[in-house]
Every structure is written in C-alpha cells, then in structure tokens.
C-alpha cells in the first residue's frame, strides 16, 4: 500500500512542480524535509522514551493487570459469548488496556494473539454444531458455485470473520487511546504554546467514535447470525 502512496506523492509532486516551474523549491524541500524528519525524531526520542519508561513501571508494578480486571464488565458486555476463562478474553483485555494507555507496541502482539484465539474459538464452535451448519454451508457454496479444493474443503467456512472478530477490530480502529502521546510530541516540535491542551477534547472525540462503534457493534451482533 505504502509503495503506491509514496510513489504517487513523489511522482505527482515532481510532475506538478515541473509543470508550474517550482523545481528549485522542490530541491530545497527535499533537503529541508530530510533535516526536519531527523529533528522530529530527536524530540520524539525524549517524549516517547519517557512515556514507554513510565508504562513499563505501570506494567511491572501490576497496575496494568489491575486495570485489566477493571475492564472485565465492559468486555463481558461487548463479547458475551466468549467464555470468561478463555485465552481470547485475556488477550483482548491486554490489547484494550495497552490501547487505552497508548502502548501501540504492546497492543499489537496481544491483538494478534486475540485474533488467533478467536479463530480457535470459532473452530470449536463449528465442531459443536454436529456438522449441521457445515452441511448448510456446503449446500450454500454449491448453490452459489463457490469452488472448493479437496484439502481446503473443511476450512473454507473458517475464512469468514466471526462477530467477535468484527467487534474486536472495530473497537481497535475506533481508537481507545486516552493520551495521544505522539500528537503531543509533534505539537511540541512545531512550537505549540501548550502541546497537551488537546487531551480533554481528544478524549471526548475518541469517546464519541468509540461509542458509535459500540452501538453499531451491538446492533450488528444482535441482528446477524454468522
């Protein structure tokens, strides 16, 4: 994806610049931007480094674990069909807490594990339905002329996302982050008088996008069978 976006930006920029006679500005722009990127990274090193250090303290001291337990009622509401002791449930908690605290690097591995566990949960669920559903799916696929290769035949219906997977991903995309550390760092680098001033409105905006996502997910979860 980025290969296209990056090439598009550079090619369109230079072509348009040549057309408008802005080639000298582009030469200067390349050198200035490269310098600026490194300066920005130096600011980021301090702010992000401090934040990750602080979060490590929160993790080691058991604060993150405690927050995960606090989150349980919310997760039960969002994922009523996942058994409480199931690994998927734990990974989802860790992913949500990491997202809320802005620990992107900790959120992604837990999120990937959660998706694998949700896939496993889906497989268990399919098995328990005495193969009835499987027959239905095979009929459906035959009717619609979907090709099936011998080996993949059993697994083809597993490539459909479960409700839990959809909800989990929508929640992740709606952003759960409480304090937008990166944006604060960027603002500080570009001379904001008060970089952190955005925290409260940012929390409100995040809350609105997340609440919209929750309402949408609950409606879809009730309305549609897998």
């Amino acid at each position, binding site marked *: 994806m980025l290969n296209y976006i990056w090439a598009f930006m550079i090619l369109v920029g230079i072509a348009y610049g040549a057309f408008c006679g802005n080639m000298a500005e582009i030469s200067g722009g390349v050198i200035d931007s490269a310098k600026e990127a490194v300066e920005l990274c130096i600011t980021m090193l301090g702010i992000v480094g401090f934040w990750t250090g602080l979060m490590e303290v929160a993790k080691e*001291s058991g604060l993150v674990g405690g927050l995960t337990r606090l989150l349980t009622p919310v997760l039960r509401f969002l994922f009523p069909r996942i058994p409480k002791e199931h690994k998927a449930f734990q990974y989802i908690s860790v992913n949500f807490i990491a997202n809320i605290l802005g620990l992107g690097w900790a959120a992604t591995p837990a999120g990937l594990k959660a*998706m694998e566990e949700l896939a496993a949960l889906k497989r268990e669920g399919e098995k328990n339905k005495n193969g009835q559903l499987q027959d239905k799916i095979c009929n459906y696929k035959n009717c619609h002329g979907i090709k099936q290769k011998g080996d993949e035949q059993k697994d083809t219906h597993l490539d459909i996302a479960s409700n839990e997977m959809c909800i989990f991903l929508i929640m*992740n995309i*709606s952003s759960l982050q409480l304090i937008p550390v990166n944006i604060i760092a960027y*603002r500080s680098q570009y001379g904001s008088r008060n970089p952190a001033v955005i925290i409260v*409105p*940012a929390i409100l905006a995040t809350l609105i*996008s997340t609440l919209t996502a929750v309402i949408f997910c609950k409606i879809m979860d009730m309305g549609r069978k897998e």
Partner: protein
Amino acid sequence: MRVLANLSNLMIPVFIFYIVAYGFAAKTPVYDVFIKGVKEGLKTVVGIMPTLIGLMIAVGILRASGILEFWGGFLGNITNPIGFPGDLVPLTFVKMFSSSAATGLVLDIFKQYGPDSKIGLMTSLMMSSTETIFYTMSVYFMAAKVQKVRFTLSGALLATLAGTIASVILAQSTYSLLF
C-alpha cells in the same frame, strides 16, 4: 474559561504521579524498570525513523510543488461550506490507509498553520480519535486467516466518520476555551 485547558494540563502530571507512586508502593524497582522501558521506546522511535524520513520528504515534495494548495483550494470549495477545511480532506483519506503517511501530512499542516491554530487543533483531534482502518484490518485478519470481513469495514468507516465529525465540532466549539 480555561477549565478544559487546565484539566488537560492536569492529566499528565497526575498520571505520572499515580504510576510512580503505585510502582513505589508495590516495591517495584521503579527507576530500573523505567530505564528498561525507555530503551524499548527509543528502539520504537529509531524503528519509525526511516519511515518518517521517507514520508516527510514525499510530503515536502508535494508541498513545494504547490499541488497541495491547489487541491486544498479545490476541495475547500466543496467542503468549506459544511465547516470542514479543504486542507484536511487529503489527510482524512490517507489516514485510512497509512498512519505514517498521515503523520507526514499532519506535520505539514502544523508547519503551515501552527499546531495552535484552529485547523491544527482539528488535525490533532482527528489523529487522536481514530486508527488506520486498512492497515489494522489486514494485519489482524491475516493472523486469523480471515478473508470475509463482514461488518468490520462498515463499522470501522462509521467510527472514523463519527470521530472526524466530532473532531471538527469539538475544535470549532472548544477553540476559544483552549487558546
């Protein structure tokens, strides 16, 4: 009148105090653990450095060519009447595909208008309230070997739309309270 700004300013110190106090009370070797975490954070920043250099140069070229003003002016004619600045339209789209490419555009907006301008505030809120749709979906669904995503995309787009509208309205209504 500056309640919002004061509350925002309070959060970080209170947050830091709480985490250090909690760690100290739990007998965690706070300083050692902190240093370990900083090392991880530095690795993350160094990891994104090549991306930032590549994308900031690409945005720098776009900016210097004059095409961003052209697009912004063009799109602004359509979106300005509903209170949405044309300069934010490219950002809204790029943000769905790549958060690092979006970062390049955000920094460009900060450079041109300043982070404390109304459009700078709007940009900050937009970036804070949503995540990259297509990147997140492809990485996570790959882990679960899923190809049919069902209602994920529509939900993600809806959440992004809600976040964007909220950012614009919040920026319009709280700007005078914050600055």
